[in-house]
């Protein structure tokens, strides 16, 4: 029976090729636009560290007071030097690290292949950063708390830098010169570039080559490695700009901070600790406002920072609008198409076909159009995802990728949407009274 319905459906569609092509194209475009934008949004909203993101938290302390809060009374997203160091010293979470962005340059050495200086992107972190974020080391490991305290001139480099400077291999123990200082390599990491860059709470965006060097925080401070990212200062105070010493003494914020808390009880305790810390500062007169802290886990923090840019969200909405209009269009065209065949339906009903058979016939016809539209949609989606880099920023477009789930979803969406659009026309077609249309008109 299904084969018979299918054959009839195909024959009917072939009788009006223009209309069929139009419907399939419409569905194809609508589905492709939506799926392309969805793939971008999916890439942008993906959790960068899904196995651990609910245990990683971003504490925010209000060190500026009521005059400088963001909308909703939000405190700054980063820390100043004094508070970051106090929190690190008191060490209340399972693991924690203050982080700031550096961009040193590696000077050409006798052993390196490359003779001109290489500018690097990196971060100054504490030793707990690596186990906290599950960074993998093919060679060596991170540094210890003693190295943090000393501070020792040690360094962790990326695989790419390892290739560039040492030609690859186990370079633990070798020396690299950064900004006129020598550093001993203690570990080499796999190329690690989670997107978005969630540990950089000041700038949690997309793009970048990934960090190439990690240096102990206090070591970077000791050699005056300037902050390579932005800093924010309280309204009415002057920005120390590149004066790194003054930056450390000011209450301008420039340090990201991340903590690891293993369970809900630990989160509760840490929240209490932050409030106690702020109350203590209030007592000593450094803050003269009530505690106004925040402690969000990484997914919530990324959501709060609205990492998915506004114009991409608008584009997704408009693409979905296109899909809805395409479906309404298909519904109208299917209605016209089915009702045009009222005579044929009348004859079939008179010959004994039940309403269910008519239902099945037209639903299958809608389904065939859906499959055709889905195939076209697949092709357009592939083209769309490949070309999306032309209209969206490269860093965002790179995260949109084609994979089997996306393509299956495209096909499924097209078929289900067309079936839904075809429900009402099918219902109307089945209700055609046979006698009326059998009369000689």
């Amino acid at each position: 029976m299904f084969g018979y319905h299918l054959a009839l459906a195909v024959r009917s569609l072939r009788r009006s090729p223009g209309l069929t092509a139009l419907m399939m194209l419409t569905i194809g475009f609508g589905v492709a636009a939506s799926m392309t934008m969805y793939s971008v949004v999916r890439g942008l909203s993906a959790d960068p560290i899904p196995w651990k993101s609910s245990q990683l938290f971003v504490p925010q302390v209000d060190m500026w007071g009521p005059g400088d809060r963001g909308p909703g009374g939000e405190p700054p997203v980063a820390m100043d030097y004094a508070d970051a160091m106090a929190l690190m010293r008191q060490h209340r979470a399972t693991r924690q690290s203050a982080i700031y962005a550096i961009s040193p340059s590696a000077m050409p050495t006798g052993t390196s292949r490359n003779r001109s200086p290489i500018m690097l992107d990196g971060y100054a972190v504490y030793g707990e950063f690596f186990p906290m974020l599950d960074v993998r080391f093919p060679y060596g490991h991170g540094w210890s708390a003693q190295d943090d305290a000393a501070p020792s001139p040690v360094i962790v480099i990326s695989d790419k830098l390892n290739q560039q400077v040492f030609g690859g291999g186990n370079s633990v123990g070798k020396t690299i010169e950064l900004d006129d200082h020598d550093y001993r390599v203690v570990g080499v990491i796999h190329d690690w570039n989670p997107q978005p860059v969630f540990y950089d709470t000041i700038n949690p965006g997309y793009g970048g080559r990934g960090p190439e060097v990690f240096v102990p925080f206090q070591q970077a401070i000791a050699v005056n490695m300037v902050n390579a990212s932005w800093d924010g200062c309280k309204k009415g105070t002057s920005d120390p700009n590149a004066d790194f010493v003054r930056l450390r003494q000011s209450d301008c914020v420039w340090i990201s901070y991340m903590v690891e808390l293993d369970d809900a009880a630990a989160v509760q305790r840490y929240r209490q600790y932050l409030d106690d810390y702020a109350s203590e500062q209030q007592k000593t007169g450094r803050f003269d406002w009530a505690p106004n802290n925040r402690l969000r886990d990484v997914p919530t923090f990324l959501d709060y920072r609205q990492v998915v840019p506004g114009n991409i969200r608008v584009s997704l909405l408009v693409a979905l609008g296109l899909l809805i209009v395409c479906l309404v269009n298909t519904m109208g065209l299917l209605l016209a198409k089915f009702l045009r065949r009222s005579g044929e339906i009348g004859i079939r009903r008179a010959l004994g076909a039940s309403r269910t058979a008519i239902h099945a016939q037209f639903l299958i016809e809608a389904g065939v159009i859906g499959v055709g539209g889905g195939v076209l949609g697949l092709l357009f989606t592939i083209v769309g995802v490949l070309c999306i880099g032309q209209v969206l920023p490269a860093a965002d477009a790179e995260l949109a990728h084609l994979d089997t789930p996306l393509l299956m979803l495209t096909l499924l969406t097209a078929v289900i949407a067309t079936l839904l659009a075809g429900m009402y026309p099918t219902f109307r077609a089945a209700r055609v009274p046979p006698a009326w249309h059998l009369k000689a008109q």
Partner: protein
Amino acid sequence: MTVHPILAALRRHKVAVLLIVLQIALTLAIVANALFIIGQHIQRMERPTGADEKDLIWVLQQWPGLSGGDDVATLEKIDALQRTDLEILRHLPDVQDAAASTSIPILSGFSGGHITLNPNQQGLSVHAAYYFGDQRLRHTLGLHLIAGRDFDASEIRHGRAKADSPAIIVSKPVADALFPNGNALGQTVYQDGSPATIVGIVERLQTPKWADSNWAYNSVLEPFRDDDRWSGYVVRARPGRVQAAIREARKALLAVNPMRLMPEPSAGVHAFSEIRARAYRQDRGMVLLMSVISAILLCVTAAGIVGLTSFWVGQRTRQIGVRRALGARKVDILRYFQLENLLIAGGGAVVGALFAVGLNEWLMTHVEMTRLPLSCVALGVLVMLTLGQAAVLVPAQRASNVPPVVATRSV
């Protein structure tokens, strides 16, 4: 031509009419908002910076290995390197002038602060971006000086940039915000607490930020050469010699000191037109995306109208034949279908205008967007009505060609 028969006929196809009305309404809502978004992006892309952008070049480079300390010896070393670079740049054959600067409009790093009328930062406070540069900066950028004077060489200090210069040049919006009655020249204001006299006012200088803000044109020129391992130079090439000047500048700078780093894409030697194109790439992309989606939407709606009207023509062939037999001319049949379409499209446009405003309200709360102007909605209504009329032409023509003899046939 009475409307009543048309409405009576449409009442028999309620659902189909509803679908077309819905389609037109949704398309109008989306296209109106899309056109508005396109307009906004185009407006942003056309914003003048205030500088004479033709023949302007931005050089940004880094001296590696110099630490962030502020010992006098390092700062003097950097200053000497900068002065050497500037001398070399000024003497290139295709270069008219060169100046030191920490930033350029639209797209570079910068520092900003607040200008107030009193030292304790109370009351009126104007947010502004600081351009730290030397006495040639205003001229090299090509800014239009409307009052006062340029800095002279003796006023230029150097070292670690701090906004505490005793003399500043401000852009007109800053001057107007601080002194609404227009006598800003010669007045003393406070930059993050330090006093400064306004010695000059330029008509327009955009801040180095790409994003829109209400202080996008609040800039202050500081007579201070910043000695930092990152240093930037603004270069004006001789008219029409930009590419030659870029080549010469790159070669000359690397010849003097091969230990510079110019990591692309932000550093290096670039024509300002290239920087402008890069800054607005995202806007161009959105314009393209919205245009493509709008075009597809309009085509789909037009196709829907054509399809449905053709169906109705097919259904009513006998009625059309009878009308023709009773004396209607071809043009009467044409007008009938056009009027019918106008009624449907009109209904759809009214509903669509409401949807458009509603969609705009929703977008305003969830994304950064401003209110849709009524002219955009009106334009959208006009577009939909025209589209409907254009789409109905072909089926209506076919209808008008139905011969009267159809009335006499029984099948």
